């Protein structure tokens, strides 16, 4: 905003207007930031509260209540209990480990399968029967529409007969299927942005098409792959529907554990809050550390 005459009346009017719009923008931004942060703040502080603090509605730690480890003790994660053997902690870590293994392997598998398919579709023309490239792309992307309920029951029966019910492999396969369209969508956009001349040069220099893909294209597309991986990771980590239906004791993931605790009656708020905090914390950290990649992943395909 250019104010040329600082003492002139018109210049002053421009200045006040500018200040007013600044304040409005920052006010709105701050309000929405509070809307986004308050539930997280509330959950984390509640995990350090005792029953009277919850009932009195105390909010700010050290100001109107003293933080206690009671909530975290209920999942065996407090300074006092950390050295001791704790069954609840083992239970928690088992679920945590399940979630980690399932979401990481599923995302990895999806990124590998999806990148290959996306590369093929962006470089070569195929014919499978009546299906051409655009049909094949559409076939992959249309899987996104498929609601999980449609597949849930056939998979329940199928997994029962395959002995895959309540196993991590079963969940990994399903989650891969779930995120594959998104990965293909992101990666196709990435590969289309890489100039074909690069691979042509590599082919002239004597590499095969797979060699060119591995040595030339992959390193360039790596940031996109990381973005697709992180996005898949988030989706798989948070998935509840299939995990609730297809697992019972061995392979249950964190969301299922959290959900099974919410049903129990009584205001056991501190332990629920501790459990919820522990379940969301890994992704909050991922979001803060890798924000760039998440945004890149979601922006890909949106802008052509």
């Amino acid at each position, binding site marked *: 905003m250019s104010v040329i005459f600082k003492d002139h009346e018109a210049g002053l009017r421009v200045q006040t207007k500018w200040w007013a719009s600044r304040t409005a923008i920052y006010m709105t931004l701050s309000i929405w930031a509070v809307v986004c*942060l308050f539930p997280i703040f509330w959950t984390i502080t509640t995990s350090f509260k005792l029953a009277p603090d919850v009932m009195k509605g105390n909010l700010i730690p050290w100001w109107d209540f003293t933080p206690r480890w009671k909530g975290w003790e209920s999942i065996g994660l407090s300074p006092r209990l950390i050295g001791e053997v704790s069954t609840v902690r083992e239970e928690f870590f088992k679920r945590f480990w399940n979630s980690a293994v399932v979401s990481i392997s599923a995302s990895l598998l999806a990124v590998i399968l999806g990148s290959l398919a996306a590369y093929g579709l962006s*470089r070569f023309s195929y014919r499978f029967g009546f299906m051409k490239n655009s049909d094949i792309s559409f076939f992959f992307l249309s899987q996104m529409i498929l609601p999980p309920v449609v597949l849930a*029951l056939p998979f329940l029966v199928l997994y029962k007969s395959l002995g895959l019910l309540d196993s991590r492999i079963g969940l990994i396969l399903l989650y891969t299927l779930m995120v594959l369209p998104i990965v293909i969508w992101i990666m196709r956009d990435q590969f289309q942005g890489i100039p074909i001349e690069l691979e042509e040069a590599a082919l002239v220099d004597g590499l095969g098409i797979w060699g060119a893909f591995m040595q030339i294209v992959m390193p360039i597309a790596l940031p996109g792959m990381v973005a697709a991986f992180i996005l898949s990771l988030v989706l798989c980590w948070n998935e509840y529907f299939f995990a609730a239906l297809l697992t019972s004791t061995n392979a249950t993931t964190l969301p299922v554990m959290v959900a099974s605790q*919410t049903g129990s009656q009584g205001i056991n708020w501190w332990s629920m809050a501790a459990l919820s905090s522990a379940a969301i914390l890994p992704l909050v950290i991922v979001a803060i550390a890798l924000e760039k990649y998440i945004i890149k992943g979601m922006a890909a395909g949106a802008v052509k």
Partner: protein
Amino acid sequence: MNTDGDLLHTVTADNISDSRKRLGKLMVWGTALFCVMLALLQAIYQAGSIGIGFETWRPILYAYMLWATALCAAQVIVNGEKGKRTLFVLPAALFVISLVVFPLLFALYISFTDWNLASPNGPQPNGWDNLVQMWNDSFYWNALTNMVYYVLAVSVEYVIAFGLALLLNAQIRARKFFRVVFLLPLMLSPVAVSWMIGKSMLEVRFGPISRIIRDLGGEPTFFGDPEIARFMIMAMDAWTFIPFIMIMLLAGLQAMPSEVLEASKVDGASGWQSFKEIIFPLMLPVSVTAVVIRIIFKLKLADIIINVTSGGPGGATDSVTSFIFREYRDRSNVGYGTLLAMVYLVLIVIFVTLFLKLVSRWMERPA
């Protein structure tokens, strides 16, 4: 995208001998035969006619995977360089086909049976009974009506997200901080959100929001009244997914050429005018993508409903997915539930196709 002919041309002189071709074909057909034989054996064993067989169908899965590997390998053996190209897409295609098409066919079969997991008889085909039952099931129609409301709520989410994206795109300090903070809700699992907000912050006695309402002199009921309960579910879902729309729109705003906006400013357009005449029309394609994807996610909405209200009060918050989830879990009504899911799938496909058609026609219309 240009789909005629390869973008990346490869010229190779493939001399594939007949014996090599025969080997490839033998591999595919041999493993396929092996897989089918194994499946037949297991089917007979399950029927009880013979004594040899496996405990589960797992070995057939391994045989199927062997066949899939052989099929991929055979592409290269039979077709040479052309096969190497096919190898990029084939694994993903095989994966999706085996995990979607077979289960869908199976689902089609069970949706016309009276299968209840609790009944000892197993699936018995019962013709059109399930469809008739669906027609008279007011709860299912109620859930479908709710889905209409839920999808309509996307428009409000879109407006809020657009506003936030515009603000983030303005000349502000601490942009990265705000971007991270605004992104956070998307990272949280719906199950955790349903406890954090639905069960604790909106708790009638001790939740902070109820406290504020009581201080203002109101009487908080969040999940007692049907209309308010539905609104609360919408709000929670919006809270998690607004960042998603926002980031896509932000990417669109950042990709927009700044010359156009500057030109409009020179021509004397006010802020609202330049938004209405320039920003919004230029953002239409991105908006459509974001909204379509958001609607697709919305149609799967279930986790929050299952965990907060489980459909209540009186089915006012039920989504189709949560309704069918209860049909499976509480009543083990497998056949009927699957039919409902299949009908829902058909409705979704019709709706999304029509929506895309309409949007593309509307966008092509000369302004």
